[in-house]
């Protein structure tokens, strides 16, 4: 890992704030001529933090020794990336001195520009460093082990790439949700619940789709609060998830024309639709509790990796924040395992893991 110490410090900072972290994310070109997607740049570390509505927002982090570029040039690159990714804020950590004017200019562009010394002060004063966390997510070994998945299991490259690239390049939450379920379903026959790295890959994938679902739950809650009937929620969700009523009707019509006559009576919907409706309705009771479900699942995913076993406490700290987090995580995991058509041992394992956290 290049600039690893800076990245790990930033990662720890995100974890202390209970923000959902990701490392080494690839950014694709939004328009392309070539048949395969092209990476145009990458982000070293990023986090998702909840805004006042509960929506999880992007916070981009860049860690560089930066020998041949001025700090402000890097800030301008970051500003462009914030626009491109619809991200709120960015942070650049440099292991060299920075001219004050560069730092002040960065502030106007919603980018925080810090030396590692500055960051030490900033991070200590903006988070609780007295909190002792032992997180699977803070260990470099776990991230490195996780990244071996495509090499060890080439048929699972798609699932891995989804987490590193596709998810972050989708335009909106509804597309992230649909493509996340799609990816799980096309990878399911390659997944062996007896392999720890497969377990981690699946649960990490579930944690990402939970980010999308969190934002959908928040959206629905703010628009309709608590829907009166199942039919109301059913209609609103179908229209929202498939990108508007026109798109929904078009896809539904297309499907009915090409699918089996027996499926003609059934409208287009996500797999296990009734369970999905129940999950959303339940989550609307305490929508903000869903915020931490993705982080909880990602932490458990990394604790499943076959690196040297350690005693972690981070998952326990997360669930202590709100009793609904664990409940929603269990309900959501059950839904996703069924919707993805995964071998049943995955659900059993994940749900047992979640139950065992106190």
């Amino acid at each position, binding site marked *: 890992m290049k600039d690893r110490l800076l990245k790990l410090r930033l990662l720890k900072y995100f974890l202390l704030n209970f923000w959902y972290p990701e490392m080494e994310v690839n950014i694709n070109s939004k328009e392309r001529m070539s048949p395969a997607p092209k990476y145009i740049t990458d982000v070293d570390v990023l986090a998702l933090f909840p805004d006042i509505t509960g929506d999880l927002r992007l916070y981009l982090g860049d860690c560089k020794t930066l020998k041949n570029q001025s700090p402000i040039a890097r800030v301008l690159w970051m500003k462009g990336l914030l626009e491109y990714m619809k991200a709120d804020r960015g942070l650049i950590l440099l292991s060299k001195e920075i001219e004050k004017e560069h730092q002040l200019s960065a502030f106007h562009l919603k980018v925080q520009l810090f030396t590692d010394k500055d960051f030490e002060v900033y991070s200590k004063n903006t988070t609780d460093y007295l909190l002792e966390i032992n997180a699977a997510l803070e260990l470099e070994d776990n991230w490195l082990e996780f990244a071996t998945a495509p090499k060890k299991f080439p048929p*699972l490259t798609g699932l891995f790439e989804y987490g590193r690239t596709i998810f972050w390049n989708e335009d909106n939450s509804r597309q992230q949700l*649909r493509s996340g379920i799609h990816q799980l379903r096309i990878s399911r*026959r390659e997944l062996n*619940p*007896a392999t720890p790295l497969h377990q981690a890959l699946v649960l990490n994938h579930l944690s990402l789709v939970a980010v999308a679902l969190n934002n959908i739950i928040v959206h629905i809650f703010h628009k309709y609060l608590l829907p009166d009937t199942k039919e109301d929620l059913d209609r609103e969700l179908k229209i929202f998830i498939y*990108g508007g009523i026109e798109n929904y009707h078009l*896809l539904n019509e297309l499907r009915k024309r090409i699918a*089996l006559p027996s499926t003609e009576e059934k409208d*287009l919907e996500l*797999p296990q639709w009734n369970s999905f409706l129940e999950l959303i309705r339940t989550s609307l009771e305490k929508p903000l509790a869903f915020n931490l479900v993705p982080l909880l699942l990602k932490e458990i995913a990394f604790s499943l990796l076959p690196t040297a076993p350690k005693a972690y406490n981070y998952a326990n700290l997360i669930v202590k924040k709100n009793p609904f987090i664990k409940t929603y995580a269990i309900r959501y995991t059950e839904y996703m395992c069924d919707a993805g058509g995964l071998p049943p041992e995955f659900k059993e394992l994940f749900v047992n893991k979640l139950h065992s956290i106190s």
Partner: protein
Amino acid sequence: MQPTKSIFIMNFEDSASKCHDIQVSLDGREVPDFELIPKVGMMVNLALHIRGLATIDYVQLRLVASHYFGIPTFIFKDIINSLAEVEFVSLYTHGKTVKSVTPKVPYFDSVYAKIGEYADATGFSEPEKVALTILEKLAQSPTEKSNIYSIGAEKKILDRNVQIGIDGGYIMNERARGKDILVSPLFFSENYQLFADLAAKSGAKTIQRILTLIKDSQGWPLSLIEKTKSINGTTVTDDEIALIKRLAQDSVIKPPAITTPHAGHNYFLFPPTPGNSKLNLSNKEIYERAMALISSVRQGQLLAQRYPIKNPLWILSSLKSTGWLRPTTETKVQYQQLAIMRVGRIVDTGNGWHKFILIDTEENVRALDLAISLLSTGSIANMEIDQEARIALQKDQTYIESVVSANKLRRKEKIELDEQTTEEIDNLLLKASL
């Protein structure tokens, strides 16, 4: 090069049966590697269908054989002559022209064994022996692809053979838990993905053991297996019970179930539904009725509230000879499913007692016969016959001519997609960029 001869130890009956399976599945498709397999398969198929029929006009038989069994017209004569050689038909000829065919297919000797003997005398080629051995293995259980190599034949021949099976529709290569699993839809026509998953998880031997136990005790209730940790006296492990539970609960096509106030909702387990070569589509409903009959008597035998049935075979035999069953207080819930399927009627005899009366149709009597056969021998018999083809053979020539021409028109209709393709379409729509 490794020897392939030593691997071929199938008996006459099994080899002819597997030829028939392959031939039905190939459905007229040409495989350059096979010479005797399609011929033997065609002989079996034709013999089974003409058993017991009156003398048939040669041209009519040729048309039916082409239309229903995919026997090409140019080799029909060879097939008929070979059947004459094994004395399954006698031919009435004018010079070199065959005018009519009189079936002499025996009822009490195995059609498969006799034709298998003929095939053995003619001699299968090495690739054909490999094909039959692979299919024999896959008839027991789906298996990991790598296990096929333990057959002992040359890898090139094995790979080619698996590919022929996939192209011919009698082998499927399913991915499950990151492994290549071979499944034959001829023996696992429904829920094949579930079977592939179970084979990937537990291995072919475990599946084979469980299926043998289920086959020997058809219609055994799942709840009783869980409670006693055994199937009809044979102990099963917790892992095997978990596997059996998945067979009942995760199947796309569920096994029959009966709900009663005293025993709750119970699934009755049956071996996998065979494919078209063993269970012709026209007989599928009869098979379903037979399973429902067995489930009802198993309910009475093993999950009765008060007076259990001692021997389910006696009950079915009694139903066959008298057409009804003695009234009991449990008849209504026990036989309700059979009433829904129009196998019988439930008559109220007063004070909560009900009597079950068989509806005397040809289908119901055949279902009853099949249920008795399944309970006594564990195997499915005489269900490979296409009833429509039998009708066509017994009507005059204009009937089959009209069927053939109607079929030509039907081919232009919309192609129906199977369940798996529909699922794939739904999956693709998830990815729409909206």
